[in-house]
Every structure is written in structure tokens, then in C-alpha cells.
């Protein structure tokens, strides 16, 4: 999973706005109380991924994460002793003693798993649709070296992975198949590390001749050279406003208990109208910026 430029409003938005929007979606999932609201957020994020042309990539991560979410739900229902509605009695299981499975424990576990899944989806969308270069360029105002280090890692990790694949293929071409065991693996690791060092030297030389050393003396973080020239586009504004709206709604709902939900000791939720209003508001705030598709071509 990596950033791929597609013709979509989220890709067209500047990285800061896109990142803010994804973080707001993730934060809303973390603070959402009601399972219906959580389900609505999950659906909205998946719909956003589809609207951004990365639905398949994000869904793949979701499919990988879903079994873990179920495992969490299962562990919760087995471990947690709260809740009053018993749905099954497993009897005495040493060393845990008497185990009663409760509806509340199951719902809480499912909600926990779903929350984790939704946050994962939000950050998968972030990884696929927010330009890391653009984001790191913004970070340079804070720390040039850290931002460049992070960018180089993003750029070179796939290159080094390809090196490792090649070295492994070369090992298989040896008459003895490269041997086996710890010694052979250590030799392979050493070769990959040596290659990485060679590459690092070449990259360091390239940075020198691209004037990296001059950055210290001429342009200071925060100076004019680090400010973006690009004016705020309709998509920048739309995603920034959407992010603020989602965050505002989530915070307001959390503070007022609007659309709230209690799991223990008995399931107790807000009136359906409140829940639907909250879910509708969050979904609308998340999806509206995807509707305007003018000027999205890369």
C-alpha cells in the first residue's frame, strides 16, 4: 500500500488538508459511542476511498484487519466479566473459573474491533491518497533534516526491498542453492546491509551535489523558501472545512452525550432519531467534499 496519484478531490487537495481530513475521520471513529454511528463512519470512509479511486487498496487492508477485529471481540467476550445479559454459560474453565458470555461483553468487543477497523481504514486512505512529499515539504518548516530523512526512507525502502529480492535470487543461482541455516541467512543479511550502505553513500553524494549542504546556510526553516506558493484550491478548502466540521460534531457529541451509547451493565442507547441525526451529519460532512470533481486531474 502506497501513495498513488489518482484523479480525485482528495488527491487534488493539498496534503495538509487531506491529512487533517483523514485524522478527523479517525478521531471521529475513536470518539463515536454508538455502534450505528461507527458503522456509518466505516461506510463513509469506504465510500470516500472509492470516490478517491483507492477503494480496492483500502478494502484490501480492511479485509486483512477484519479477522483481527473479530478476534478482539472474541477475547473481550471471553475475558470481560461485566454485563448482565448472559447468552451462554461455559462452566468452570481453569484457571479462569466460571465463564459466562454476556451480550454486553460481545457488543463492546464488536464495537472495539469495529473502531479499530475504522481507524485503520482512515489511515489506509491517508497512506493511499495523501501525497507524502507534499506533507513532508510542510514538515520542513519544523525540521528540515527529519522531514528529509522520512522522505528518503519512503523513497528508498522499496529500492532496498528490491535489492534484497535480487540478492536472494542470486543466492538461489549458486550451484549449492546458497545453502541454508543461520550462517547462510546471516551472509544474506550482511550482503543486503552492505548494499544498503553502498546505496546510502551514493544518495549522500547526490544530496551534496543537489545543494543540500547549502540549505543550512541560505534558507532557514520558516523562511520564504519553505512557504508554499500554491493558493488554496476549492478542494483544499472543502477538505479542511469538512475536517473541522467532523471534528466539531464528534467533540460536541462527546461532550453533550448526543447519540450516546452505554454498554455496561445493560445496553442503553440514545433515541434512534438522535443517533440517525449524528450519523447523518458525520457522513454528510465526510462525503460532501468528494462531490465536487472539478479540477481533479493530476
Amino acid at each position, binding site marked *: 500500500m*502506497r*501513495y*498513488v*496519484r489518482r484523479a480525485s478531490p482528495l488527491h487534488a487537495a493539498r496534503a495538509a488538508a487531506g491529512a487533517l481530513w483523514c485524522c478527523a475521520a479517525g478521531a471521529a471513529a475513536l470518539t463515536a459511542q454508538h455502534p450505528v454511528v461507527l458503522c456509518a463512519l466505516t461506510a463513509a470512509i469506504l465510500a470516500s476511498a472509492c470516490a478517491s479511486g483507492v477503494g480496492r487498496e483500502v478494502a484490501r487492508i480492511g479485509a486483512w484487519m477484519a479477522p483481527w477485529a473479530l478476534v478482539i471481540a472474541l477475547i473481550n467476550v471471553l475475558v470481560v466479566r461485566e454485563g448482565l445479559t448472559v447468552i451462554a454459560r461455559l462452566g468452570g474453565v481453569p484457571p479462569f473459573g466460571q465463564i459466562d458470555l454476556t451480550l454486553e461483553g460481545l457488543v463492546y468487543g464488536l464495537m472495539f474491533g469495529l473502531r479499530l477497523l475504522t481507524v485503520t481504514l482512515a489511515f489506509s486512505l491517508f497512506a493511499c491518497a495523501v*501525497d*507524502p*512529499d*507534499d506533507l513532508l*515539504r510542510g514538515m520542513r518548516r519544523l525540521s528540515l533534516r527529519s522531514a528529509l530523512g522520512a*522522505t*528518503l526512507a*519512503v*523513497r528508498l525502502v*522499496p*529500492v532496498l526491498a528490491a*535489492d534484497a529480492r*535480487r*540478492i536472494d*535470487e*542470486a*543466492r*538461489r*543461482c*549458486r*550451484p*549449492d542453492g*546458497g545453502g541454508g541455516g543461520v550462517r547462510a541467512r546471516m*551472509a*544474506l543479511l*550482511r*550482503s543486503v546491509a*552492505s*548494499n544498503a550502505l*553502498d*546505496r546510502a553513500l*551514493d*544518495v*549522500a*553524494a*547526490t*544530496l*551534496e*551535489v*543537489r*545543494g*543540500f*549542504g*547549502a*540549505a543550512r546556510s*541560505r*534558507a532557514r526553516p520558516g*523562511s*520564504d*523558501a*519553505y*512557504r*508554499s*506558493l500554491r493558493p488554496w484550491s476549492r478542494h483544499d478548502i472543502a477538505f479542511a472545512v469538512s475536517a473541522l466540521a467532523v471534528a466539531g460534531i464528534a467533540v460536541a457529541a462527546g461532550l453533550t452525550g448526543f447519540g450516546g451509547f452505554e454498554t455496561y451493565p445493560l445496553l442503553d442507547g440514545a433515541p434512534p432519531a438522535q443517533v440517525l441525526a449524528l450519523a447523518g451529519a458525520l457522513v454528510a460532512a465526510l462525503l460532501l467534499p468528494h462531490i465536487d470533481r472539478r479540477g481533479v486531474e*493530476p
Partner: protein
Amino acid sequence: MSLLRLEDVTYTYAGAREPSLRRVSLEVGEGEFVVLAGASASGKSTLLRAAAGLVPHFHGGAFSGRVLVGDLDTRAHGPADISTVAGSLFQDPETQVVLTTVRAELAFPLENRGHSPAEVARGVEEAALALGIAHLLDRPTSELSGGELQRVALGAALAGRPPLVLLDEPTSQLDPVAGDELIWLLRRLNEEWGTTIVLAEHRLERCLAAADRVVALVDGRVACDAPPRDFLAWAGTHAPSLQTPAARLFSLAGLTPPPTGVKDARAALRAAGRDARALAAARPDAPDPGDRPSRRERRRRRREAALSLEGVWHERRGGRTVLRGVDLQLAPGELVALMGRNGAGKSTLLRHAAGLMDPTRGRVRARGRVALLLQHPGDYLLAERVDDEASPEALAAVGLADLTDRHPRDLSGGQRQRLALAIVLDSPEPPAVVALDEPTRGMDRATKAELAARLRALAAGGAAVIVATHDPEFAAEAAERVVLLADGRPVADGPAAEVLAGGWYFATETARITGGAALLPADGAALLGRRQREEAPAR
């Protein structure tokens, strides 16, 4: 006015015994196109690194003399300062592109130099348009081909419009199409924008036509500094391995002056009354396509083949089809060159031959072990000493018996490749097939000739040898049969003299000069001599 001046420069890398540059003095004027020629390890890269300020600031070592780039003395100014006057481009495109999108990559040097956002935006736009990469601006660098990456790296080197560009074998990792495109781009930069170019290159025939001067380095010294024609005349007597095929053809045929390119050579031959068309008429007729072997003959060949690919398909899951029903047989002792553009399926075919990949349809049969040497010989090096990598017999067979105590990574490119070859051949069971994937990348002519001789020796020993290569000169010299792949299937398969003589692109320089009548300079010279003798009595 000179843009680059080296005065009596001597330089020894840290830990090295011998200097890489010895008392080099050189001046490059504004708007010149200078080619640096020389065998591997002759000092070309070191000279360029000294001009870029990397020597001694980045590499350390002992430095004496003076290098002036514009008005900047490299002893007082580091590579970052020098980069405002001289852009640099090295061999490996993968390590020269440091950011994740093309736009960010082009902006990076300008941002480093503290340009305003408006200047950065304009610099990016100008560099992208000048190099024809505007359509790539928003593409991730991880998705670019080698040629595109090298163009982007050149764009980053040119983003601040430096008056001087230093290029160290920028085409060595590229296929010939991308390499030729890059050379044409440099020519355009030089002619239309007056950018001064200093280019180190092994395949001189590519760039001599554009060059104003050639500086030849031998053992770290300037051995010749002259216009291309004079350089070729000098190379004919002092450094034959630096001669282009066209110059060697003329030199063997006793013609002067040596030509700087195909057009020049054809014009000279026409003037001498030896038109390429007339020479082409002397070309032996291609065999009749009706001479196709019978089914029984084909079956026999398949049975006796050292390697047989029968209807091999390779279809990537969710991707494209790389091989499409390839039928190919290699007889024991046969030496075959596998040619084709990038992505034609050459490397995949060799991987199938060696069993690194399984065909999605069809089958591969080998009469014994298949030794495969992949593109990067450095990938084979796992041990700390050369003699830990292969047996003494295998090392002696490739001429590395005297380097047993060296660290494999300290070896030169050619030595590394010989060591990798020793590794894959080092077995009590001799290989039935030896396969090599692009073994001549970045090699000088002398090392290529050595490799060709080594491959012929392997074939003479009974192994079937198959070499994937982009280099028609090497294929003509080494192979007896050439298979041309296109879009995953062979589109030509026949004797080298037939396949490499008739094409536009897959043809040697001598074939292009002689209209396909000869492949190698020696054959071309013999043909010219024969024609001369035939014409003499007529007169």
C-alpha cells in the same frame, strides 16, 4: 572564458596506494561539449567528482593542485556551493532520485539554494519542459523506468540552470533507446541553450558526433586532448580499445581520416567510390525461408538440445503477459545472443531457463545444470574474502587466482563479474547451460572482448551459452546465433550475420556503414579490401 579549470591536480583516495589522478591540467570553455574517454579505472569518474567538489570534500584522501569551477575554488567551496555552477549526474538513476514525486525532485535543489516559491515553480516548469518530462511531474518516482528516472535526475541537476553539467556514464544503466535519447538531449542542451557538457562515456560512437573535444585519460593522466577526429587517429595507434567500430573499420582498411560517426563514414566511403549500396550488393543472400527444418529435424534438435523451451508462457497474476508461447532450443556448444528492447521478456526467459520461475504454460527442459549470471554481479557476493566465495580452481579459471585475499566488494566492476561467474560455475558438475543477463552494462571495450573470449571458451567446452544483451557489437563479436525477442516471443532467430545485418536498430555500426555487408570492423575492412582488388584490374 573557461568554466572549468584543473591545474596540476593529483588525487589519491583515502586508503588507496596509487593516485587516481596524476598531475591533470585541463580547461573547458563556455559552451563546449567535451567527452572523457578511457578504460575503466582510468580516472574519468574521479575527474568529474573533483569538478563537482566531491573530491576531496566528500571522499577525503590526498589532494594537490587546484580546481576552479566558474570562479569557485573547490578547496574553499564544497559540493553544495559548486552545484550552483555545475550540475552533476552519475551512473545509477535509482540512487540519484531522492524524493517520491518528480515535481518534488526537481524542486529540491532550488529549495536547498533558498529560491523563492515563485522561482522554484518556474525552475521546475522550465527544467521539465526542456527535458520533455512535463507529463511526468506528478508521477511517483517509484513508477518511472530507468530512462525516465535518469531524465528526472538530469532535470534536478539542471533545475537551477547551471552553465556546466558533469555526467559520469549516465547511459551505462540504460537500454540503448533510453541511452541514445539522453545523448540527444545533451546535444540539444549544448546547441540550443549553450550549456557546457563534460561527459564520461564508454560507448564513444554514441557521442563523438556531438563532441567538440575528447579528453582521453590513461592511468589518471591526460593522454590525449583533441577534436574527435584527431582523438580517433591518436587512439588508432595508442589506445585501440578506445576506437569506435567505424574508426577501427577505416583504420584496418587503411582509410584516413577516421570517421566520427556512421554518416561521416558513409560520406567518406562514397567519396572514395565505395558506396554502402554497392557494398550491400556484396552481402551474401539470406537463406530462403523455405529452408525451414522438417518436423523430424526439429524433433531431433529438441531431443538433443542442452536447453529446450517448449511453448513457454509467462502470464503475471493481475498483470501483463511477458512470454507468449516461446519455442527455443539451444544445442550443446552453441553461443546465442538474446536481444530485444526493455520489457521484451529477455530476463524472464533466462529466469525460466534457470528454474527461478515456473511457466504458466509450456515446459522448460535442460540436460543438466543451468548456471545463471544475473544483471548485478555484486548481488552474488556474500563472503568477506574472494577465496571464500569460490574454489581455487574456479577462481583460476576466471583469472582471479591472484586476488584471493581481497574483499569482494573492493574489486572493480569487471573483476566482480568474473568472480560472480566463478561462483555460478563452481560445481563438480559442469553446467549444461550458461545464461548471462546483460553482462556488458557499464563495461569498457577491452573488458567486453575478454568476456566474449571467456564465453567462447565455455561454449567450446560443450556448454550452451545464452547471453541477453542490448549491445549489437558484443552480440556480433561473441555469438554465432541471435534471437530477437519482441513482445514476449522470438521475431527473428538466425545466424548473427543475418539478424544483425538487416536491421535499423539491432545492427552493428559496421553493418550500418556497409549496408549490412559486414558486422565487425575486421570483416568490413576485408570486404573493402576485396572490393578494391576486384575494381583494380577493371581499371
